């Protein structure tokens, strides 16, 4: 079962992976059981790193072109911020650990699982949710293709799939069936709508290219 990797750029503020690792190492050093050769020297937090939390912090998210101010604890994920603190409920909470793709949004131009991004990390980047794909109530080509090809049943995986398909088609405007099956392996459906999804993606690609032949 192929899975698309979650890609996200290095956050500009807050914790970086490197900061986290070095702090982790400093904690580890204080614990005799795991201290030993090969463990990095402790490093003081860099002076430019801002410590947030554990209480609520004000944040601003730019969602579908609209700035939203909210106040959340740093541990709150982007998915929970969208769903519980705002009313963007298109992204769904299903596995809550970056397996199923139901929470897929586009963050700074990249497709991410919003259950595995902290809300504070998502600041300063454009966030596109499924609600942002249809302008003025008109369905985007991939959404219209989902309806026409009945690429949905209960519909709970559908918003995540639609966003993933949009991001996929932006990068692969002329996909083959094999490309579709590989590129969308990171979204899971329980009702079994993949047959419709395959057709919908190929049909939408065709529409977006102005009705030319696939290839």
């Amino acid at each position, binding site marked *: *079962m*192929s*899975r698309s990797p979650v890609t996200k750029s290095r956050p500009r503020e807050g914790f970086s992976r490197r900061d986290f690792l070095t702090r982790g190492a400093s904690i580890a050093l204080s614990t005799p059981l795991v201290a030993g050769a090969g463990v990095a020297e402790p490093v003081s937090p860099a002076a430019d790193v801002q410590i947030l939390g554990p209480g609520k912090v004000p944040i601003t998210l730019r969602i579908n072109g609209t700035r939203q101010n909210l106040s959340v*604890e740093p*541990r*709150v994920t982007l998915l*929970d911020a969208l*769903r*519980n603190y705002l*009313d*963007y*409920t*298109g*992204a*769904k*909470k*299903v*596995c*809550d*650990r970056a*397996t*199923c793709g*139901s929470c897929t949004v586009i963050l700074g131009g990249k497709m991410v699982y919003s259950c595995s991004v902290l809300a504070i990390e998502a600041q300063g980047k454009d966030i596109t*949710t*499924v*609600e942002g*794909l*249809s302008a003025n109530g008109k*369905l985007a080509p991939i*959404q219209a293709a*989902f*309806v*026409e090809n*009945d690429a*949905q*049943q*209960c*519909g*709970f*995986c*559908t*918003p995540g799939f*639609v966003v993933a398909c949009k991001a996929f088609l932006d990068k692969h405007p002329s996909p083959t069936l094999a490309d*579709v*099956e*590989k590129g*969308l*392996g990171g*979204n*899971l*459906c*329980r*009702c*079994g*709508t*993949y*047959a*419709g*999804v*395959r057709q919908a993606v190929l049909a939408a690609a065709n529409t977006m290219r102005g009705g030319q032949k696939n290839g």
Partner: protein
Amino acid sequence: MAEYNWPEASKRSLIGKRISRLDGPEKVSGKAKYTYDLKRPGMLYGKMVRCPHAHAKVSSIDTSAAEKMPGVKAVKIIQDPGSEIQWAGDGVVVVAATEEHLAEDAARAVKVTYEVLPHLVREEDLSKAGDRAKPAAEKVAGDPTKAFSEAEVVSEGTYSIAVITHCCLESHGQITEWEGDKLNVFPSTQAVTGIGGEFVKALGIPATNVRVRMNHVGGGFGSKFNADRWGIEGARLAKLAGQPVKIMLERDAELMVAGGRPSSFAKIKMGAKKDGTITAWESNSWGTGGPGGAGMPPLPYVWQIPNQRMNHTGVATNIGPARAWRAPNHPQACFLTMSAIEDLAAALKMDPLEICLKNISLLGPRASLYQEELLKGAEIIEWKRKWHLRGDTTAGHIKRGLGLSMHTWGGAPHNSECRVTINPDGSVSAELASQDLGTGTRTVIAIVAAETLGLPIEAVKVNIGDSAYPPSGGSGGSTTVGGVSSSTRRAAADALDAIFKAVAPALNADPANLEAAGGKIQVKGDASKSMTWQQACARLGVKPIRANGKQPDPAKGSLASSGVAGIQMAEVTVDTETGIVKIEKLVSVQDMGLIIDAKTAESQIYGALIMGVCYALYEEKIMDQATGRMLNPNMEFYKLAGIGDIGTLVVHLMTGQEQDARGVIGLGEPPVVSPGAAISNAVANAIGVRVPSLPITPDRVLTAMEKKGGLT
């Protein structure tokens, strides 16, 4: 007198056509609101403290620390000290807090101690089950002893199919909200009408005080009929907190406690003549569905073998309770039976398709339908050209094989009431306390109402998902489409009759001589004498027409029936170096009586085939006897098929006058029954040996090949 019978094919403008589901646009744009998406004013988040042991007695509970946590509004013990717990993950305490993670913090701060009791969570070795094994009475038909002694060929095998879980993407749960002594429930449910009664009973409040509402449900598959412990306790917690409470199960809880299809194991012996005539069946089966054990699946499945002996043992385990899973007991019975028949065919060195055709009379009243479907499937998958004797002898490590299976299901209509309203402004609504599981129920209701009234589908507003509407059955057992289409047809026909009476004088015609078509009401056979729908409705003055339709309503004939056949064929390739099975093609040939919407009917079958791939190759609730816990309560290791795992799917719907004459028959269950058997048979045909257990994981493929002595 209104016309209730379905219109004949030449007069249908919507029924049986390919119509996109009406709620498609709101689903693809993220606007569709599921229970999980709802917020109510002042709503709290509820979380449960869950027992980590498979079998234990609660010794003590200390909630004092949790009660002092920030944001916590209520803490409630739901299983007092002394309570016996039968599965890991069962709820003991429930807490409510202003934010979700604060509720999680509080749940973690509750201290519960347990007296751990002995548990059993694995049932494959019946000798270890002790008094938890509960044998049922032997069932015998004909004279199996004599039949086996006279059989020219006897084939034996042991087969098993694992416990799987429903894994609904929208987990189970609800919001419970009190308005004084009235309770509003917003559940994720398959039974908008039925679920309220459980709150009435458990909470001791009048039925008139409970209202249930739900717009969309993110999967049920048979697991979402009940209020459940989290529903009832959620209502009590909301009362205690004085605020609405939302409890949605976390993914691990969803997989541990909110779904389970019973396992089935069986030793099967079959007897036959050399020419392939099946004469005898003997099975010793066992299985578990949790503390309640498991009844015998309907063995032998579909085939009415003249001489049979069946013994079955249910095993009570601590794995969480079973729930109805799409076509309860049929996938298990089908896999066991159709595997045994394929193995018999292999023993006879015969084509299983020939065996099926040769014994077709054992299939009962639908034998000729099965035959027609088998031949159609064989044509689509090119059976004659591609089938070979067991074991692909071509060179290389990729082996190809074909398998087949057949199934049945009832799908009779459930009880349903529909209210159709025609307003003086021409607008039309159909109202039922039903639900659309994603099967297309909304769309079906609109198609039937619009067809009956001669209107475009957009003209009908369908209102479902509210217990304030007329009662309609739960969506289980493929009963919904027959129920709602019958009640809607009758309501719309009576409403139309009323409007005919209102406009007949203006058209200078007998009401019985009017018809509705193309958005007009006109005199039959004289299109010059007509008025538009709007003009007709305007004649109602200020009084809308309301008509109620019911299912059943014997005085108004029969619009639905039950009992389908259905066959499936699978083509797979197996990599004998890795043990990985790849689905190349699945073919489904399915009858379902009169089809209301061909597009969503096809989707049901595509979905069933894909769910079938999931349980044939990937899904298993893996229990650990040492800890009593489920090892894979997540979606990394509880595996579902991905979009690249399903191969080419071909769906053939049986249509025509003969099917139309049967009326509407439910479709949800039947096509999910056969994939496990068809795929397993195809794997055996490819690699030359039976992989005896579902799911057919790579390790099981390699083990089966090793036992057989490799690829020889």
